[in-house]
């Protein structure tokens, strides 16, 4: 089991866990959104590194590609392509919620919000 073959997966898991850690421990809502961004990028990394074939090139036919050319797997690319734009859209909605929470409670620290909310 050569570690070079699995280094990609271990880095993807490390990024996933650090995003997970940020979401758990940090109270600041914007910091949580940054953690979610890191988490989703690690998933993209995992998908793309599964699709790569040694010696294969990008799945685009062009005059540079010889007939018997080995191509990397195009299917994960399609999934991740749309996932990135959807990820940005959901981050923007999260930011909008954070702005509204800040205007409503005056803070975006989780425990301060909880304190203010119970007191009302």
């Amino acid at each position, binding site marked *: 089991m050569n570690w070079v073959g699995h280094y990609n997966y271990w880095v993807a898991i490390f990024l996933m866990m650090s995003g997970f850690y940020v979401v758990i421990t940090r109270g600041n809502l914007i910091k949580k959104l940054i953690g979610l961004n890191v988490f989703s990028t690690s998933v993209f990394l995992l998908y793309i590194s599964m699709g790569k074939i040694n010696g294969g090139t*990008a799945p685009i036919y062009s005059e540079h590609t010889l007939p018997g050319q080995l191509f990397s797997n195009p299917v994960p690319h399609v999934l991740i392509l749309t996932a990135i734009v959807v990820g940005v859209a959901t981050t923007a909605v999260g930011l909008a919620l954070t702005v509204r929470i800040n205007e409503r409670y005056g803070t975006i620290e989780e425990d301060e919000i909880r304190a203010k909310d119970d007191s009302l």
Partner: protein
Amino acid sequence: MEAAVDIVLLSLLCVTVIVIVYIRKLFCAIMLLGIFSLISASLFITMDAVDVAFTEAAVGTGISSILLLSALSLTHTRERRPAHQPYVALMVVAVTGAVLVYGTMDLPAFGDPDSAIHRHMAVRFIVDSPQEVGPPNVVTSVLASYRGYDTLGETTVIFTAGIALVALLGFNRRKEFKVRLSGAQITSVPEVPLSSAPKVPNADYLVLRIVGKMFIPLIMLFALYVQFHGDYGPGGGFQAGVIFASAIMLYAMIFNVETAMRVVTPTALRLLAVLGLLLYGGVGVLCMLLGGNFLDYNVLAHAPLHGQHLGIFLIELGVGITVFAIMVTMFYALGNRSGRSV
């Protein structure tokens, strides 16, 4: 040789993430998130995912840092010291990480050709797509034709996110914003009427305005190239929409958001967002009217390949228009929230 570049980039990625986790100044975390997306885009390139690297490049530098910064300028820029000790969380994260790493033990090594996922779908797409669908870029043919229905779903998700954002924040920022909650008036964000807001000294941004005037048409032209070059090389509707939106954002960065909102009005954006999605769904219904299935482009023209070509062209255009309109709507809603010019 690519493996060496791969491993070095991955290590840079890990170092960046460690600092992102432990930094308490949110502004610097957003800067490091920009670097994070730069490294992941070059990683995608070394792993032959060219379209994905294109999207990550256009989105990472253009949109996500600007949206995060706009939200940050409306809230506090410094994170409070975490109250409780993170040992339990560290332990939970370590255990989950260990289980996952154990799970990857029997994953095939990185890049070996006969792993399970390369044998079934991928071979069919790579071999059949030039005959069945036609464009040299297999990713575009899979995205638009084989998986056309899913892409319609994803475009609707982006459209809904745009609606959610407008519902939450809206564009109207002039009137006094009062919150009535169970009678007690909680907070009222004092709206600074625009006239009295200190005029951002645009005059001394002369260099930026000159370069901006030169680059905005270039970026838009490049976005159109990306839109219509999607069949032959990396590119397509998503990337083109995002690049077009960053041209408008560049305009808003140099002049303020109000002038940008007068140039590309929110009503026009609403219309465009709906138009793009309508174009996409309309092509599907048109295929049904012509006797094929929903989103089956073969019937669109006399020959199946020409029909596919026309169908992919139209729906990529629809995706590009919707993504552009939604990205600019998000920028307006977040950037213009407190009435002060971004």
